[in-house]
């Protein structure tokens, strides 16, 4: 049956994150909030980060979307929480390289934690955006944080 192939994409860990997303709530005092949409399917991710001393002290998301986008957002928040903003940016780059099949180092991939299982998304080109949307939100949130952070320190 064709659905056996589905297990390549929807592995148990992904379905677990999709059905029990971690860090899916609002932060009480975020330093930056970022909302991104996927116009082709209407998915939305609202990402909140709290940066302290260049570290992601806390991160959370709300929004709606398919199980891939929800699971990816959940795994992303788990992977980057507590990391320095620089590390988080590097991880976002590793993830997008992985998703489009670009070369990446194994050791970088390991850092992604659960999120690395989404490597199979490559076999489903129409769904790559679903997996990358939360990482894209993170990149944009960190870029915005850089700007506002600089202003705050002025």
């Amino acid at each position: 049956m064709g659905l056996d192939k589905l297990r390549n994409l929807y592995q148990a860990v992904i379905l677990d994150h999709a059905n029990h997303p971690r860090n899916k709530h609002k932060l009480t005092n975020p330093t930056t909030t970022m909302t991104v949409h996927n116009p082709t399917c209407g998915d939305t991710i609202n990402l909140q980060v709290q940066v302290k001393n260049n570290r992601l002290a806390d991160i959370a998301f709300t929004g709606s979307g398919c199980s891939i986008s929800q699971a990816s957002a959940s795994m992303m928040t788990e992977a980057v929480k507590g990391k320095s903003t620089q590390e988080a940016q590097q991880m976002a780059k590793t993830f997008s390289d992985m998703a489009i099949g670009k070369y990446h180092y194994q050791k970088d991939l390991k850092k992604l934690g659960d999120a690395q299982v989404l490597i199979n998304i490559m076999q489903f080109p129409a769904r790559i955006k679903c997996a990358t949307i939360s990482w894209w939100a993170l990149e944009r949130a960190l870029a915005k944080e850089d700007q506002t952070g600089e202003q705050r320190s002025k």
Partner: protein
Amino acid sequence: MSNPWRDDFPILKQRVNDERLAYLDNAATSQKPQAVIDTVTHFYEHDNANVHRGVHTLAERSTSRYEEARRKVQQFIHAQRSDEIIFTKGCTDSLNLVTSTYGNQVIHAGDEIVITIMEHHSNLIPWQQLAKQKGAKLKYIDIDENGQLKMDQAARLITDRTKIVAVTHISNVLGTVNPIQQLAAIAHQHHAVIVVDGAQAVAHLPVNVQELGADFYAFSGHKMLSPTGIGVLYGRHNLLAKMTPYQYGGEMIAEVHQQESTWAEPPFRFEAGTQNIAGAIGLGAAIDYLNQVGMDKIQHHEQEMVKDLLPRIVKMPGVTVYGPHDADKHTGVIAFNIDGIHPHDVATALDMDGVAVRAGHHCAQPLMERLGVPATVRASLAFYNDQQDIDQLLAAIQDTKEFFKHGTR
């Protein structure tokens, strides 16, 4: 429900993801029969030349085939004259043509344009932007709980201030057929014109623009067995004759001087530059094919499939079907959702079973908002679908439900 036509479509013979292909994304685009593919190939191998401006043999051949295609379209939609048929690059282009010529000429501040909540973005955004530019008002006819237009509201919304009523013939989400004749009568009482988006209709039921009372009727070739990049705008001759050009360039002129120019008569006034000649000839071949099958027979066969599919899918636990649940009021466009599974996950799962459907907002975001859903799955039939396609879809939906139910434990 055996199907003598399926074999005419070479693409349907392949396997997808190791499964028999059940192509149920016909509302997005139709597949092409061998006859259309051969006609386009033959044109490029034997007749290709630019139209209307050459005197050599090939130019004459391609011109006569291009104009023959125009007459085929005229007869197919029962227009009074062949110069009421304008070739465009698709339905979106046709609707933008009406908006930026006729719409731009007649709409002034304070005027009203009436459309419906079920419009595809292509029959919505052009009017929305025109209304914004001109300071006109854009009003929406709502739907009832069965997904059908509220006609009492339509009668109230369309007034003497209304200059244009723009409505889809068949909804690309709900599968409802709108009462165009009735809407045209109301529009005409108030001296407004009616623009009909026929994208989801022309390949599925016989269309007679004169009987419908349509002043403009727009559609795409690719949803009716033709190549992409060819479309049609029908416009009543007395309206076209007064309209300003859409684009400027070659072919659309009468005389050009250094400081001023005059325009060709319709339809050429609206066909600037070299058109999609092969596309138009392909459209002509598609019309020949559709006529050979018979539009009545096509409508009947599709309705028989809806009568089988609709009650079965409506009955599935955990499945919500949008639009009317009465098969007599529903065409072969069937939008649905499965409880707790996002439409994109459903579409990926169905694809693994060889079933091609669409998931998303179907370029109808205001309608999605009205229905209170971010997106839906959509299965859409064509006459070359058969019982096996329907059974395959329903089995794949069942598989999908089970996969995601068990996967979560």
